[in-house]
């Protein structure tokens, strides 16, 4: 019995170690390599002890101004998309939670079905339309695209979260003479904050990291950071891995920290999103 317990404990430890290594090693490796002196990046065997240096970050700053413009564009677009998605999802989620009719139920099903359409499908007709409207390569179109691909999930999530707020609270406020918007602002939004944060995690991660839409719809003015990094991978005069690791670390750090701090809401959102539609 004792040996069995010991074996189980060893098995568990190995499994946990493997899980940690699998999840964190690629990330740690990039961050670490971004701080390695030039020749150490390619050392055989890989060096895990070295004198950290910021030389690649300095080169990144000197040679890739476009990357920092990309970061700024990504920040603006992510912020805009998040605001649009949260506002839209909260309004609609509130309506779906507090009202029910055949029409409304059908339109929730419609929201779920919309999520099944692959984003690349709409690039085909949108590309010429966006060009004609002169919205190509603007922050606005990227915000709208990113927000739209999350408002359906966002609405369903918000409905789930608002369903947990007792109706008596809005009714009490309504008796006190509050209108729909006041109820929304004073009762629903504060109490549905976890839902709002869950929606925010989804949209922020998506908008900050997205590649396909950025690749098709932006070229210079609204080019996002992931797109600039993809250009570094494909640059003609060979990949400068040091600069690439530095840029990757800068792009990754904020969103990784965000997910770490918001992990509760991410978990809540993922589970509610998959089981409630």
């Amino acid at each position: 019995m004792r040996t069995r317990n010991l074996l189980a404990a060893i098995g568990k430890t190995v499994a946990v170690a493997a899980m940690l290594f699998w999840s964190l090693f690629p990330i740690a490796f990039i961050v670490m390599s971004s701080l390695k002196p030039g020749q150490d990046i390619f050392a055989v065997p890989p060096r895990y002890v070295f004198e950290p240096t910021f030389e690649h970050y300095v080169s990144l700053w000197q040679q890739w101004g476009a990357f920092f413009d990309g970061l700024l564009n990504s920040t603006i677009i992510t912020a805009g998309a998040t605001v649009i998605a949260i506002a839209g999802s909260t309004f609609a989620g509130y309506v779906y939670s507090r009202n029910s009719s055949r029409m409304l139920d059908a339109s929730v099903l419609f929201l779920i079905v919309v999520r099944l359409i692959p984003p690349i499908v709409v690039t085909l007709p949108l590309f010429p339309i966006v060009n004609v409207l002169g919205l190509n390569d603007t922050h606005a179109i990227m915000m709208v695209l990113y927000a739209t691909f999350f408002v359906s999930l966002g609405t369903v999530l918000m409905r789930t979260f608002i369903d947990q707020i007792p109706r008596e609270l809005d009714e009490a406020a309504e008796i006190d003479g509050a209108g729909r918007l006041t109820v929304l602002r004073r009762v629903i939004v504060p109490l549905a904050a976890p839902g709002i944060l869950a929606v925010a995690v989804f949209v922020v991660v998506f908008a900050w990291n997205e590649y396909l839409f950025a690749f098709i719809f932006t070229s210079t003015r609204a080019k996002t950071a992931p797109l600039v990094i993809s250009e570094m991978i494909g640059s003609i005069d060979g990949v400068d891995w040091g600069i690439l690791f530095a840029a990757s670390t800068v792009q990754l750090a904020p969103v990784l920290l965000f997910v770490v701090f918001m992990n509760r809401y991410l978990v809540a959102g993922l589970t509610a999103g998959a089981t409630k539609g």
Partner: protein
Amino acid sequence: MRSRSIIGIAPLLAPVHVLILSVIVLPSLYVVWLSLNESSFGQAPTFVGLQNYIDVITDPAFRSALWNTVLLVVVAVHIELALGLGMALLFAGGLPFRRFLLVAVLAPYAVSEVIAVVMWRFLFDPDVGPVTLMLQSMGLPILDWSFEPSHAMILIALLTIWLHLPFTFIILYAARLAIPSDLYEAARIDGATAWQAFKRVTLPLLGPAIVVALLFRYIFAFRLFSEVWLLTQGGPARSTEVVAVYLYQEAFSYNAFGTAAATAWIMVLASLLLGAGYVFILRRQVSANANA
């Protein structure tokens, strides 16, 4: 109350529905029309019926792209499921530093496809990649992914699994936590072994969550684009193309909007088909909950 409500709720519903209609639904319907015509830049479309669909389906490049996609989806998603299930059970069995481990396992969720490609490209770099060097030192074959299509597919599958394992894991872990512990208590009192408890309690009760996780991942893996595009661009010689890359090439490299649109609708139909299964299960669950 009733008459007032329509007017009251319409402005609140409008933003979401206007966005979805104008960005997703109407463009998708326009794609149907495009798929029935032959068109390119600066050329008036001519109606060709289902010819584009026939062209796409009989195109060897499409068939190979479809085959690659199905292979990737089936292999990657099922490995994800097995790993995710194992991790969910490991977590449910009680772990020290559970919160820390949970966050660590979620970390890849934050990583962009572009950064993931940077990571895995370097890890498996045929000359200096740490994983390549490790495989070599153990006398194992390395992944020569820039020349060997099947090796490139393995790397793409690894990358996909790495990026999406957090999702599969969370769905299964949440479902596992929802199983009441007295069921395990009862199984233990009845003398069930750990394996029997897994087979008779865990697996049946996780069933719906497993199906949901699978369908979700099938649908999303079927759209796979960035990983492939950034790693191989579908090459060498279109051998690692997936359906979304095929679509992109038709539309934006060859300006063949008709066949690109037909490909797009084939993708939509495949997703809807998988989605129908999901909605069916969801409905059954909702009615089961209502009856309980």
